[in-house]
């Protein structure tokens, strides 16, 4: 046996108890609880960036590649509203008010824009191979990202870094750390969890408690039969596309405050990829699946972040694990957690 191999063996021998120690550290109730809260806040963001994608795919079978770009536009647009409304002297409560004003404005604007995109651009392609819808929305991302870059650059804002002015409109109590049952929690994490829950409840209520939601659930199952019952499914397509885009943009407003994301042009790709992972893991087009998948991916992300920060010296660990979840899920259960078992239906 060579010396190098021996050295490697002894490395393993040293590493094993180290791993056990770390595992015990991780299983400490305090650590677990804080990882859990962190995971839930990540899950809230994941569910927000994915909900619109799921709704659109569920009803229309369109995989919207422009989804991330619309989140990015939402981040900038929301940031703009916040920067305009908030000054240094604005109080904390007023800042939260400004946030919800930004959410309302951005949702309304982008939902209308989304409906427009559906009517003018996506609709003519329904009769063609679904590939062309992917191609169209992919082309849209190129245009949208570059347009935003031009505009942002023109106003002297750095397009590749987070927009600090928007970040700075966050009220102080969200950046503070609180101790809650012996647990230290960042205010923004709690805010994100609350906002995520609110979004899930709102979308769920819309789907199950309104007549339009009924149309959408029926249309996702069998659009021809729905039409034959006298319901204009094409109009439902437009509404859902608008809604989906609106929710994506609202997610962007929330991200504009989060230090690990922030409004920037690369945010488009940074949110698109995890959104794909969540939507596939949950089962394409099922809202229930998306919520479950977002929680799983959020918790795994938080767990891996802890392991990277404390044990494994590999910064890519959380991100790599997320994509591994995608791959493993597609191997083990391609239809996703709550999807219908027809592989490659679309």
């Amino acid at each position, binding site marked *: 046996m060579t010396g190098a191999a021996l050295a490697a063996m002894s490395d393993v021998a040293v590493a094993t108890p180290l791993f056990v120690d770390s595992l015990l550290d991780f299983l400490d109730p305090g650590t677990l609880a804080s990882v859990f809260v962190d995971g839930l806040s990540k899950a809230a963001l994941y569910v927000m960036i994915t909900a619109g994608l799921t709704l659109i795919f569920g009803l229309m079978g369109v995989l919207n590649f422009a989804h991330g770009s619309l989140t990015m536009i939402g981040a900038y647009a929301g940031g703009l509203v916040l920067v305009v409304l908030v000054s240094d002297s604005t109080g904390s409560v007023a800042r939260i008010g400004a946030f919800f004003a930004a959410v309302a404005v951005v949702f309304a604007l982008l939902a209308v824009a989304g409906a427009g995109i559906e009517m003018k651009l996506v609709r003519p392609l329904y009769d063609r191979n679904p590939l062309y819808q992917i191609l169209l929305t992919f082309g849209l991302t190129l245009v949208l990202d570059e347009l935003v870059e031009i505009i942002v650059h023109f106003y002297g804002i750095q397009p590749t870094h987070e927009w600090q002015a928007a970040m700075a409109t966050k009220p102080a109590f969200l950046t503070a750390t609180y101790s809650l049952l012996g647990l230290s929690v960042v205010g923004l994490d709690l805010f994100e969890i609350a906002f995520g829950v609110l979004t899930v409840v709102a979308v769920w209520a819309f789907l199950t408690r309104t007549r339009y939601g009924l149309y959408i659930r*029926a249309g996702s199952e069998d659009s021809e039969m*729905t*039409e*034959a019952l*006298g*319901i204009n499914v*094409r109009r439902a397509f437009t509404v859902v596309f608008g809604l989906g885009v609106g929710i994506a943009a609202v997610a962007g407003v929330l991200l504009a405050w989060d230090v690990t994301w922030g409004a920037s042009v690369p945010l488009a790709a940074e949110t698109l990829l995890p959104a794909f992972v969540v939507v596939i893991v949950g089962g394409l087009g099922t809202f229930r699946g998306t919520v479950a998948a977002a929680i799983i991916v959020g918790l795994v992300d938080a767990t891996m972040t802890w392991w990277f920060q404390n044990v494994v010296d590999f910064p890519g660990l959380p991100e790599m694990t997320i994509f591994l979840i995608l791959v493993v899920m597609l191997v083990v259960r391609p239809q996703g957690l709550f999807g219908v078992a027809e592989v490659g239906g679309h």
Partner: protein
Amino acid sequence: MTLLEVDDVHTYYGQSHILEGVSLTVEAGETVALIGRNGVGKTTTLRTILQLTAPRRGSVRIRGEDVTGLGTHDVARRGLGWIPEDRRMFSELSVEENLRIAVKDTDRVGGKLAHAFEVFPDLEQFRDKKAGALSGGQQQMVAIARGLVGDNDLLLVDEPSEGLAPLIVETVAESLRRVSSDTSLLLVEQNFPLAMDLADRFYLLDNGQVVEQGSTDDVSREDEQIRRHLSA
């Protein structure tokens, strides 16, 4: 005024010519059977009437109004209901939701549902159950009830007895009879005695064309002409 007029329609699936000039009429209050072997264009005729598959030539008129080329939902809004082959339940939706979505007069959803459960009392107990979990016969009931709550003047019924046990078929026939007191039916049915029993008139389809028509009173299965077209 004639409720439905189908006038010389030609329908294609891609390159294949399925309907080669079909004409038929349904009057208000009538039950009309559309019979013929498999693959002669019966289902396509129903799809053409609903504009699910638009005809390339010819026209479909409802109460004299030309609906050719309209969207399917617009045709359905003019009082047409579809009870398709295989029922096509929304299997993830509850029975009640399946009925609720079929109500066209949205101001009177509650009353319509109550009426449906009156006509089909057996369905009441499954109200909150997912439609996908029901048996074939129960699903057929829901499908017929879906046609009922939509205030339709004409129901296009496709193979309602297919795949059901004889005893169940009798129940289905009974409910169709009950529904037909309020609305007209255009009934596609392989079960010849059942079709003749339910219908006032019939059209016999072969190779995308109407080859025989008349009143069901003076038709027997032994009729040479009909036997030739019904046997494979």
